């Protein structure tokens, strides 16, 4: 075991895969700067900077993968994926199906996501529910360095498209350039355990679709991904002081969803609160509820999500994103109904 930071863990797992498999390569905007270490170590053939042409290079990555390569494509911010949506929605996600399962698209689309640093509604979205909606795409959202590295490795070696989302409050490179910018005059609610933590000496893939139970409880289950996991853990500590025992589950992957793990926890607590930084309607929070109802479970239900476009104003942004206070209030309300 050793300590690593979140962004460093991703880079370290990527480097391990790039050494193991010559066909793994990175491409995307500005990667010579964003991944300066990997660019230096592996050279421009394997760390390829692209023009700002998301639809072209993401589309090209799909067939590059079909041609035998394993591209890790960076689109900087998940919000920018809108520009290249055809490549994901109608190409990457469909090839295996259309070819009768005879042709795979082993591509990883890596993007930063999430808010909490005042960059407004076009650069702070989460969108994992929107992406996971598409059959054929897996979506992973790690919350700590160990998961960040292990999930990156499994994403790279997965024989189908995976969207890999890293929250900007966890990944110091992103927060530094987008939120801090060299200033000492700004501060953010950064989850320390997410930013730095223990990692294995050598990366092993963490299977997608296996949630992690981070805190046992008996009264209510808090389910989340990314930064929401840390907000939930904080809330669970405060709830404990109020006599409420909350279990906290880190889904780690939005799709595939660990239905079995969710079922086990909800069967025990009988109450579910989904904490989702993505949009509330037509998304992860509703999907989890529907899935568990289909499993014939009866439970109390609540959700704390982002309900509208994220405001630029820091004050309004704090109210819009899931916070410890909102989680506590909603947990109490959910249990009491």
């Amino acid at each position, binding site marked *: 075991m050793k300590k690593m930071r979140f962004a460093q863990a991703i880079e370290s797992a990527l480097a391990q895969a790039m050494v193991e498999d010559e066909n793994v390569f990175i491409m995307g905007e500005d990667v010579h700067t964003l991944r300066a270490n990997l660019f230096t170590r592996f050279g421009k053939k394997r760390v390829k900077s692209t023009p700002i042409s998301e639809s072209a290079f993401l589309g090209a990555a799909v067939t590059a993968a079909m041609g035998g390569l394993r591209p890790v494509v960076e689109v900087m911010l998940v919000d920018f994926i809108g520009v290249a949506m055809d490549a994901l929605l109608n190409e990457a996600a469909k090839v295996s199906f259309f070819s009768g399962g005879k042709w795979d698209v082993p591509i990883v689309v890596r993007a930063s996501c999430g808010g909490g640093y005042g960059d407004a509604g076009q650069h702070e979205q989460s969108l994992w529910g929107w992406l996971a909606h598409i059959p054929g795409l897996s979506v992973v959202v790690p919350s700590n360095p160990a998961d960040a590295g292990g999930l990156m490795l499994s994403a790279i070696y997965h024989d189908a498209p995976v969207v890999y989302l890293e929250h900007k409050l966890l990944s110091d490179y992103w927060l530094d350039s987008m939120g801090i910018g060299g200033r000492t005059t700004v501060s953010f609610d950064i989850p320390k355990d997410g930013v730095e933590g223990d990692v294995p000496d050598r990366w092993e893939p963490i299977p997608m679709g296996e949630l992690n139970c981070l805190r046992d409880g008996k009264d209510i289950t808090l389910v989340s991904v990314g930064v929401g996991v840390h907000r939930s853990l904080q809330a669970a500590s405060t709830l404990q002081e109020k006599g409420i025992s909350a279990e906290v589950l880190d889904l780690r992957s939005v799709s595939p969803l660990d239905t079995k793990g969710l079922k086990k926890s909800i069967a025990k607590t009988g109450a579910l609160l989904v904490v989702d930084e993505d949009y509330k309607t037509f998304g992860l929070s509703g999907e989890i509820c529907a899935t568990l109802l289909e499993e014939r479970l009866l439970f109390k239900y609540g959700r704390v999500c982002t309900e509208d476009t994220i*405001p630029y104003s820091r004050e309004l942004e704090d109210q819009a994103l899931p916070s410890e206070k909102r989680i506590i209030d909603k947990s109490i309300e959910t249990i009491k109904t």
Partner: protein
Amino acid sequence: MVEAEAWQLYELMLRSRRFEEAVKKLWDAGKISGEMHLGIGEEAIIAGVVSQLKEGDAMALDHRGTPPLIMRGIDMVALLLEFLGHPQGLCAGMGGHMHLFSKEHLAASSGIVGSSGPAATGFALALRYNKSDNIAVALFGEGSMNQGMMLESMNLASVWKLPVLFVCKDNDWAITTLSKEVTGGTLVDRARGFGIEGAEVDGIDVAAVLKVAKYAISKMRKDGGPYFVHAHCVHKTGHFLGDPLLRFHETPMKMFDPSLMKSAFSIKGGAPFHVRGGSLVKIFSFVSKSGKQRKIDPLVVTEKKLKENKGRLKEIEETVSNEVEQAVRKALDIVQGRGEA
């Protein structure tokens, strides 16, 4: 360019510059959050174009929307309050500097690279639909010229004969990537390929921009149809204030990552060491190239041409600086609950 115009354009440029310098101070002080993309270095382009707009003309803006809005005469206090995230801001504190909208000025912004192409095309469609002689301007960087939506808009504007002035502000850098390394052919030729007349111009020289803008805009008002301007400029404050290349020049010791040397010379697994050396040289050449931009300044160039009338220069400087200072003071008072918008 007649003398009166030279003074008018200089004042527009100066107002934008002083305003953005004040914005930078507020950002440095942590009063403005998130990223900050300033238009410092592209004022001559904006002044040359925006000075030729009339009421009813539309502007589709990119992530550097502040200079065109200031030059179009938008209220400074409303803009500052927006950046400060105040409910009385231009967009009620909802948008911030990358997402500025003014229905009154027919001005819309987006932080998505290339999106001002379709936006200006749609504005032009609405304007032509009602048979006005108004035009729409798309402001964007040369990075946008590799976006499908920009090129598709150029085609659409061409075949539908829509009066869109495509203004490509070329500062050589697509974020921290050198544009010439990721861009094929020449940009004016691309426009011509769509049947759009175009010109390449020195965007540091406001008189040169003005000349092209006057020609293009009067032609568009009369005959419809688009025009393409490829104007070369600089971004003196980097892609954004968090730009690692910019910060490398400001605080080299802080920005230098020692692990880079390890990646280049000692770590096992990866490319042969001569390739790694080449990568390192590339990174440092980018840092060095980005530094050259810092020495070029369209405002200084414009000021030099007017230096014979020092008295008037001083007078304008005082007026504009006062105007900006007062706006900042008023905005901060409002934020602190001591004043009204």
